[in-house]
């Protein structure tokens, strides 16, 4: 187990270094400086600006300066919002995006695991087919379609829930969570069903039943532990997908989270903000992958090799 942790961290570090180096080089090789689009700035002011944002140094010096800043969580100043640092902007957006991702994954787990267990307990019946075909639809319909359609039906035509915002009006969190969580609920359902079907055929389940344990106890205590391994291994990549999905969902519903900041920074060419949030996103994603790998290994000794 200890070896596994070391090995995973040994991969995570070069991944993060590659990300930082690549994004840094890409942003710095962008045609034109960050102040080019501003209306004519005098040479003197430009020199001052370059000095202030450290742009007059050679690239290698800037790179190591930036790297040592990142290590202590300092992503430098934002180009577009003077006086605010990128770290500050990230810390404003992060709690909202995190809340959105957390609710979505909880929704996905509750609905998905329930549907998957039911399907596995009664395979090839209506209880299996109906949730599983719905899951297939859920996987195929992307958030860019699901979001607007949910708004159109439940927000505009039926008028049941607000169509935008986050925490401004009661119920405005429902549609974003549904939009982001549905595809993951569908994946969870399929993975749970597959995992449970495999486990329920094994000898130790027969033993548990033979001991006279109730069916609920057999399923919840004995089978779920093994049956959920694929779901837990999926949670890491799912978090990565959720963060990327937050770009779309936060844009559609006007939620002031990290995903929307990122897309806005991409539009405004706020290079330090793009650089900082790219690195931050990558760090989150790599960490979630690491955690889910380790949890999966803790649950399933076979993965520890």
């Amino acid at each position, binding site marked *: 187990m200890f070896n596994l942790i070391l090995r995973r961290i040994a*991969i995570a570090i*070069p991944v993060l270094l*590659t990300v930082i180096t690549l*994004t840094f080089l890409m942003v710095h090789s962008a045609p034109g400086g960050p102040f080019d689009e501003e209306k004519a700035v005098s040479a003197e002011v430009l020199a001052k600006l370059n000095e202030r944002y450290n742009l007059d140094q050679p690239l290698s010096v800037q790179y190591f300066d930036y790297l040592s800043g990142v290590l202590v969580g300092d992503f430098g100043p934002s180009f577009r919002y003077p006086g605010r640092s990128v770290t500050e902007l990230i810390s404003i957006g992060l709690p909202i995006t995190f809340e959105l991702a957390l609710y979505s994954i909880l929704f996905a787990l509750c609905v998905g695991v329930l549907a998957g267990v039911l399907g596995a307990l009664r395979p090839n019946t209506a209880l299996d087919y109906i949730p599983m075909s719905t899951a297939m639809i859920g*996987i195929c319909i992307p958030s*860019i*379609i699901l979001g607007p359609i949910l708004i159109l039906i439940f927000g*505009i035509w039926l008028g049941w829930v607000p169509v935008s915002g986050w925490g401004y009006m009661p119920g405005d969190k429902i549609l974003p969570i549904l939009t982001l969580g549905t595809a993951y609920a569908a994946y969870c359902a399929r993975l749970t069903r597959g995992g449970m079907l495999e486990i329920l055929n094994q000898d130790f389940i027969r033993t548990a039943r033979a001991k006279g344990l109730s069916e609920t106890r057999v399923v919840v205590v004995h089978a779920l532990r093994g049956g959920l391994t694929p779901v837990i291994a999926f949670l890491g990549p799912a978090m990565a997908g959720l963060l990327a999905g937050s770009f779309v969902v936060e844009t559609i519903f006007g939620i002031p989270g990290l995903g929307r900041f990122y897309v806005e920074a991409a539009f405004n060419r706020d290079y330090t903000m793009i650089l900082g949030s790219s690195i931050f996103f*990558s760090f989150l994603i790599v960490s979630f992958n690491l955690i889910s790998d380790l949890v999966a290994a803790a649950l399933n000794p076979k993965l520890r090799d």
Partner: protein
Amino acid sequence: MNNSLWKDAFNRLISNKLSLFGSIYILFIIVLALITPLIAPYDYAYQDLDLGPSGPSALHWLGTDTLGRDLLTRMMYGSRVSLMVGFLATMVALSIGVIWGTVAGFSGGKVDTIMMRIVDVLYGIPFIIFVILLMVIFGRNLILLFMAIGAVEWLTMARIVRSQVMSLSKQEFILAAEAMGVSRVGIIYKHLIPNAIGPVIVYATLTVPQIMLLEAFLSFLGLGVQAPLSSWGLLIRDGAVSMEEYWWLLIFPSLAFSLTLFSLNFIGDGLRDALDPRTSDS
């Protein structure tokens, strides 16, 4: 290659109703996209500002958008962009992945270890962020878009091909070919790639919808294709903006795009069952 194997696989594929439906729909969309310049009812940049947004009618079957552009025409031209990005990027991913995986699997030893470590590291990088960065920094260039997407989607392909090659290269007919003095390149092209192709085709079919989705995603955020050119992602974005008054602008492109994604996934699942009858989908 064994002909009856492919014939069997083909028969199994079309006996699966969902895959059959998917194949027919995709063929229809591809043919339509190919002949769009010949049969499109209007020019894709033609605007009828006096008409403005109008619902489905005899003149404009699927209605017009806020600038009076014919929706059917824009969808047909959009399908060309979406399909082109999907298929070309898959080809790029396929070529890199197959070559990388074959070389790694066939070489073994240190070369294999180093090549697969590189894949491991690249796997950890969240590429959606890189594709967005590329679009921001180097402009919204269509060629660049699918090159970038293709160049990041080859990793799983390389892993699949490598494991196929590794299990194949231990078999007798490869040893026999080696003993007869067939060159390494010859063995790779004549024996390994043709025999490893099944899972590769399945994965490639499932990669196409993923890439189309990524393109739609970027266009939806406004970071992909730009008007007057169109893609399904861009049309869905336009539709979402004005759906309150003009629902058809959202519904029709969404329908076309969802059906395409469904069909490609059904074909992929069907192919998996057809090419490898042991692994029926669980």
